[in-house]
């Protein structure tokens, strides 16, 4: 089943284009930030730009395109959106904990030590 973009109305085409460009630009900004930030714990924040609104923008564009093109509601792209939105915090939290564990095992002075529950004197 092939849907051509020629029979789309003009406002729908503009909306699809805007959402696609928004998502791709956010993914690119996230990747650039991931390259440029200095430490690992700062770098881990940048790619989430691409996994939140990068995914959201491109999935919204795709949903609008296929819904208008096939003249029925096509929202199966929302599956990918929900899945990535749920799994990204889990993976990054696991990775940050693993990195913290490795830094503490090497006694790296830049990371805070383990909190023992009693106030430090």
């Amino acid at each position, binding site marked *: *089943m*092939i*849907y*051509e*973009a*020629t029979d*789309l*109305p*003009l406002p*729908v*085409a*503009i909306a*699809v*284009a*805007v959402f*696609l*460009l928004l*998502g*791709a*630009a956010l*993914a*690119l900004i*996230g*990747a*650039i930030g*991931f*390259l440029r930030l200095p430490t*690992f714990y700062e*770098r*881990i924040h940048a*790619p989430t730009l*691409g*996994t939140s609104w*990068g*995914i959201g923008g*491109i*999935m919204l*564009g*795709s949903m609008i*395109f*296929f819904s208008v*093109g096939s003249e029925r509601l*096509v929202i*199966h*792209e929302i*599956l*990918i959106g929900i*899945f*990535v939105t749920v*799994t990204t915090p*889990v*993976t*990054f939290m*696991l*990775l940050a*904990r*693993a*990195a913290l*564990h*490795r830094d503490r095992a090497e006694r790296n002075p830049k990371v805070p030590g383990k909190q023992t529950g009693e106030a430090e004197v």
Partner: protein
Amino acid sequence: MSAIIVFTAVSIAQLMLVAAMAIASVRMFIGPRAQDRIIALDTFYINAMLLLVTFGVGTGRVVYFEAALVIGMLGFVATVALAKFLMRGEVIE
């Protein structure tokens, strides 16, 4: 007219996503430690998934959606397994 708009937007979006994949692979090569490389791999497959969806919009076929879904699910499992390996030294204990 609308075909030109959608085609241009899809082309620019694909260029941006390929640039993001290239940047992620640069970080995967220079990344000082293993956790940087794992996050670079994560970013890489997310961008590849977005590229597939964009490709589906550009060609008007719905089959690319399934490929994107499979990439997303397998990538999550791979990243969790690698993080577990960093934490414990083994994946299944």
